[in-house]
């Protein structure tokens, strides 16, 4: 085994001290001289024509500096995927959900801006609000977007193998339908931004984003500016989970207001606006028919899905594909058919949320597999072990498993949870369940069609040789990527972690597609490693020249230059270095040359030493329509066992214990990997047990706050036993791949399966609120009683 000095450890996060003291600045902590405050006017109606907008009263209010509407913003369409650009910065002729942006105001203070926004007169002609899939697809329903007949935003049909023929050969066939509800990412930091348009026409946008690069491109496109004149920087970001992974109307409004007023403009969402902006998990309705052989071999899956998308596409075109393609793994499955539709409704737009597209599909299928195992009289773990893919397998939809520690994950949770003792042995009201997960490690393609590098990185050695400064445009949103990349830089250069400085999250530092699709560790990490190695090579070249030895004889370890052969005379280099530092203390001593000395000499010889790296995935398989969604350079997998108790009198579920194993390829930072697992499980628990964005019959959100949209508190979470599995991914830096999203995959189905074990009831609708669970228990009791009395 390779010995590492920095990676594969539990190094504390480099930004944690500043975050622990309040020194770390988040977007709302930043202020600029002479800044104005912006406010949005958002639609109070779910669906209406705009007949007239009159801003005169707003403009006349003292303190107002700029008022903008579609008349200023124009009609350039944007969105996430160019295949579905269906938004304009401000509504032009109609509003499509409560919260749709109509206008924005900049004023000397927030109160004035909000007052002015409320003084904008808009005359509407109300249209029927389509608030459900049924409403929106009903014959004769009005169109939310004229271009999309029957309100179908996307329609997907894929077939791999021959499902009907394969099903005809199966011994057990089972069909189930499963429904979830609209979610909210519910990070604790609401979105905010400051836009600053300067006199030369350069725009800087500070924003709480996961994706500086995509935001830069969207802002440039919508404001019709050269990309190079738009700089997007993120300060510390208080979580994202998907909803901050695209440019928002607020960000662009701030930019336009700054352009118009000539002043920096600060804007922030309040919590309710976080819910209105949404871009979180869709509502999914899955119907799955799975066919297996008597021996448990999974043969075919016929899958239908309807997604309720809300008023705009956002990430939806990717979501709809992910909801199908991610069932290609982790089991060997030769026949898979997927038909799906994403439907527009007059609600906030849904987008991506941790485990993008795959979470509910996974929940539905893993529960169904459990039911099938029962029908076959097989242990559900045996069923999964029998079918899982291995290293080097390719799925029916052409996903290639370059590393795959599925067996290790399953065995780890089986052993560590005490599965064998507990399965079918717990008393009524207590249950144990398991499930597996599968996820991409970075999207194989950028969201816009391009040959672009997915990331570039550079490592600049300071002229004194003492610090390696990494520049990357990647986004640390709390997951700890800055620390991961600092660790990779230190390891690859052979220097201690404290000698690495990281500057990130800024489009001026290069290209990086950002924090989404669990891509950064593998992709950015790859580029960072390459950049650090490049810088190291440049230093070694100079030293080899100076000493007249071969570069191959020189390496760097723990901040020291090491030579393959003994007896290398370093005194020339050392005296050169010492001469430059007369009067300095703590000069290098001993008989080993330090990296600092070497890097200084390299600077004297060559000028600034900059190492560069970049990453672009190799060609990834799949030429069928939609193949771009689901292909990834590598795949993570996971397994989980959940134990829970149900109060049979109230229906309340308590999660008692969770054992989770995840194959992250290789843990650069073990604490961070566990943190991602534990955080993912929390989101899964919330989604399984209580989270649901609710609407009234006008399309208003009933619970845009944390008292009624309940996310797990410390009391709702059990202790989790995290097990890190390392399968050594050949395409990842040091073997690393994803953990950030894949870890959520098994949580909901493991809960569902444990709930079945506890109650004997298969639940097909989320969330598992006490009310829903209690009703089902009561129903079951009634059925059993009437069954008994009939006998």
């Amino acid at each position, binding site marked *: 085994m390779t010995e590492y000095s920095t990676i594969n450890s*539990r190094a*504390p*996060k480099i*930004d*944690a*001290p500043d*975050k*622990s*003291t*309040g*020194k*770390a*600045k*988040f977007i*709302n*902590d930043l202020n600029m001289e002479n800044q104005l405050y912006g406010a949005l006017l958002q639609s109070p109606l779910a669906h209406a024509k705009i007949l007239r907008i009159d801003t005169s009263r707003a403009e006349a209010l003292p303190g107002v500096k700029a008022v903008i509407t579609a008349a200023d913003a124009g009609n350039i369409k944007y969105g996430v995927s160019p295949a579905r650009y269906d938004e304009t910065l401000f509504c032009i002729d109609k509003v499509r959900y409560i919260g749709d942006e109509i206008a924005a105001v900049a004023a000397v203070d927030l109160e004035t801006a909000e007052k002015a926004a409320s003084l904008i007169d808009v005359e509407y002609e109300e249209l029927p609000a389509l608030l459900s899939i049924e409403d929106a697809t009903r014959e004769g329903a009005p169109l939310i977007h004229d271009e999309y007949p029957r309100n179908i935003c996307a329609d997907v049909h894929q077939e791999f193998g021959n499902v009907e023929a394969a099903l005809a050969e199966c011994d057990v066939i089972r069909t189930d339908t499963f429904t979830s509800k609209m979610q909210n*990412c*519910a*990070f*604790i*930091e*609401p979105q905010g931004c400051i836009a600053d348009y300067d006199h030369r026409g350069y725009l800087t946008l500070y924003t709480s984003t996961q994706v500086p690069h995509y935001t830069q491109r969207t802002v440039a496109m919508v404001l019709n500016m050269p990309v190079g004149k738009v700089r997007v920087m993120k300060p*510390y*970001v*208080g*979580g994202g*989970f998907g909803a901050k992974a695209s440019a928002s109307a607020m960000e662009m409004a701030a930019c336009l207001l700054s352009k118009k007023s000539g002043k920096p403009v600060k804007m922030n969402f*309040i*919590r309710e606006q976080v819910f209105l902006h949404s871009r979180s998990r869709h509502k999914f309705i899955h119907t799955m028919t799975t066919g297996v052989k008597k021996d448990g071999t999974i043969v075919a899956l016929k899958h239908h899905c309807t997604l309720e998308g809300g008023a705009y596409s956002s990430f939806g075109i990717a979501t709809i594909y992910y909801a199908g393609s991610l069932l290609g793994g982790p089991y060997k499955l030769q026949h898979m058919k997927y038909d799906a539709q994403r439907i527009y409704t007059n609600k906030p737009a849904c987008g991506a949320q941790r485990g993008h597209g795959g979470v509910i599909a996974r929940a539905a299928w893993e529960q169904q597999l459990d039911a099938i195992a029962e029908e076959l009289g097989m242990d559900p773990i045996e069923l999964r072990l029998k079918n899982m893919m291995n290293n080097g397998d390719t799925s029916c939809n052409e996903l290639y498993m370059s590393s795959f520690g599925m067996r290790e994950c399953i065995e780890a949770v089986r052993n560590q949870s005490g599965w064998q003792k507990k399965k079918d042995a717990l008393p009524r009201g207590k249950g144990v369940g398991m499930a597996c997960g599968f996820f991409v490690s970075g999207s194989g393609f950028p969201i816009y069609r391009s040959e672009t590098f997915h990331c570039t990185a550079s490592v600049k050695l300071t002229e004194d040789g003492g610090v390696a400064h990494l520049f990357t445009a990647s986004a640390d*949103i*709390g*997951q*700890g990527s800055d620390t991961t990349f600092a660790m990779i830089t230190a390891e690859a250069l052979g220097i201690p972690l404290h000698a690495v400085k990281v500057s990130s999250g800024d489009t001026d530092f290069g290209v990086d597609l950002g924090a989404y699709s669990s891509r950064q560790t593998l992709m950015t990490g790859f580029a960072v490693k390459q950049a650090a190695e490049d810088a190291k090579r440049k230093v070694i070249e100079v030293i080899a020249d100076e000493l007249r030895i071969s570069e191959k004889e020189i390496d760097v370890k723990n901040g020291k230059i090491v030579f393959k052969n003994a007896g290398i005379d370093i005194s020339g280099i050392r005296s050169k270095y010492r001469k430059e530092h007369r009067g300095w203390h703590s000069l290098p001593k001993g008989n080993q040359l330090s990296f600092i000395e070497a890097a200084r000499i390299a600077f004297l010889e060559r000028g600034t030493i900059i190492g560069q790296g970049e990453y672009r995935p190799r060609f990834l398989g799949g030429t069928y329509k939609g193949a771009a969604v689901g292909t990834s350079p590598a795949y993570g997998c996971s397994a989980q066992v959940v134990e829970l108790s149900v109060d049979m009198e109230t229906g309340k579920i308590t999660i008692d214990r969770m054992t989770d194993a995840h194959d992250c390829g290789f843990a650069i930072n073990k*604490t*961070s990997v*566990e*943190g991602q*697992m*534990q*955080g*993912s*499980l*929390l*989101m899964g628990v919330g989604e399984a047990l209580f989270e649901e964005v609710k609407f009234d019959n006008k399309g208003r959100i009933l619970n845009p*706050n*944390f*008292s009624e949209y309940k*996310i797990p*508190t*410390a*009391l709702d*979470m059990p*202790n*989790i036993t995290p097990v890190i599995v390392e399968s050594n991914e050949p395409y990842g830096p040091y073997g690393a791949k994803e953990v950030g999203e894949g870890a959520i995959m098994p949580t909901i189905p493991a809960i569902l399966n444990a709930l079945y074990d506890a109650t004997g009831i298969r639940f097909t609708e989320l969330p598992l609120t006490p009310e829903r669970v209690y009703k089902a228990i009561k129903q079951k009791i009634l059925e059993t009683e009437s069954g008994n009395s009939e006998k």
Partner: protein
Amino acid sequence: MKKLISVTVNEKRYELAVDSNMTLVDMLREELKLTGTKKGCELGECGACTVLMDGKPVSSCLLLAIEADNREIVTIEGLETEKGLHPIQQAFVEKGAIQCGFCTPGMILSAKALLENNPNPDEHEIRKAISGNLCRCTGYQKIVEAIQSVSSDK
């Protein structure tokens, strides 16, 4: 309407003229530039704005600045000393209890209040004490472990 108040924040006394409807969190963030106290909901639901008032954790978004008149406030900026990070801060750093860090200031202050009243809390007591502080990133476990590690009877 402005009102004059006298408030001690992190052991420093301030005489301030504040609007009578200004919240305590805005006073700390805007008047005193102590932006370590965060705003996640402004409805008293997330705990990001937690500060200590006379030693008790309170949601500073629910209090008016004038309610802090003659009171003693401790914010996250008041914990570090010349000797370095407060042991709870240090534990949060070392145990990986901080991801995005947005909940951290409030979380640490809730932990401080707990440990001052109950130096040896059990796991449930810790979970209860921080149950008003929402964290969407960590799953709470490493936060609980960090607090456990500084309790006097580890």
